[in-house]
C-alpha cells in the first residue's frame, strides 16, 4: 500500500545551508526560471517595436531607419547588453540542461546519479557559455 507524505513547505530557502547537489540544482533551476520568464516579457516588449515599424515606407525599411531596426541596433551597440546576452545564454543553457536532467529523472533515468548529472550540467553550461563569448561580443567594439 502506498504511503502518504507530509512534506510541509517544499520551498524552504533556509535549506541552502545544507550543501547538497540536488538542493543547489533546485535553487539554480528556480532562479534561472524567474530570469527567463522575466526576459520573455522584456523580449516581446522590445520586439513589439516591429508593429509601428511595419507602417514605414519601403525605402526607410531598406535603409534600416525604421524604429525596430534602430532599437535593436542601438541596444546591440551597448557593451552592457552584449554582456547581459552572454548571461542570458548561460541562464538558458543551465535551465535547459538541468531541465533535461529533471525530465530524465521523471522518466526513471539517472536518479542515482542525479548529483553527477547536476555537476555535468554546470560544467557544460560553463563550456558552452565561454565558447559563445566571441560570437556574442563580435562587433560590439
Amino acid at each position: 500500500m502506498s504511503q502518504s507524505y507530509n512534506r510541509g513547505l517544499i520551498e524552504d530557502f533556509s535549506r541552502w545551508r545544507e550543501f547538497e547537489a540536488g538542493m543547489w540544482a533546485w535553487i539554480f533551476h528556480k532562479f534561472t526560471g524567474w530570469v527567463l520568464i522575466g526576459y520573455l516579457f522584456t523580449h516581446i516588449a522590445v520586439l513589439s517595436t516591429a508593429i509601428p515599424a511595419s507602417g514605414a515606407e519601403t525605402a526607410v525599411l531598406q535603409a534600416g531607419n525604421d524604429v525596430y531596426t534602430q532599437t535593436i541596433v542601438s541596444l546591440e551597440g551597448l557593451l552592457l547588453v552584449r554582456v547581459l546576452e552572454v548571461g542570458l545564454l548561460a541562464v538558458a543553457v543551465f535551465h535547459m540542461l538541468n531541465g533535461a536532467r529533471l525530465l530524465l529523472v521523471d522518466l526513471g533515468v539517472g536518479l542515482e546519479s542525479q548529483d553527477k548529472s547536476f555537476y555535468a550540467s554546470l560544467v557544460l553550461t560553463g563550456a558552452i557559455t565561454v565558447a559563445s563569448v566571441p560570437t556574442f561580443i563580435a562587433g560590439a567594439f
Partner: protein
Amino acid sequence: MAQRYSSFEKGGRMWLLQRVTAAFLLVVLAFHFFLLHFVHHADEVSFLMSAGRMETMSYYSLMVLFLLTATFHGVNGVYNALVNQGLTGTKRTVIKWTLVAASVVLILQGIRTANAWAGIPLY
C-alpha cells in the same frame, strides 16, 4: 484511501503539460539561439530580415507555438513556485488570474508582432 506521493493536483494534467512543453522548448529554444546568434548575428538584425523569416508559414507557426509553449511553461512554473512556497486561498486565486491575464497580454502582443512581420493585417 491510499494516497499517492505527489505535489500535484488535477490528476497531474498541468504537471504533464509542463513536461511536454519543456521537451518542445528544449529543441526550439536551442534552434532559436542558434539561428539568431550564430547563423545570423544580433547586430545584423533588421526589420526586413525578420519579416523575411516570418513570412514563411512554417517559421511563423513555429514561432507562435514557441510563444504559446514558452508562456505556458514560464507562467505555470512561476505559479507552481508560488504554490510550493505556501500560496493559498484568495491570494492564490488572485495571483492565478493575474498570471492568466499577463499570459493573455503577452501572447496577444507576441502574435501582433509576428503578424506585423508576416504582413498579416491583424495587428
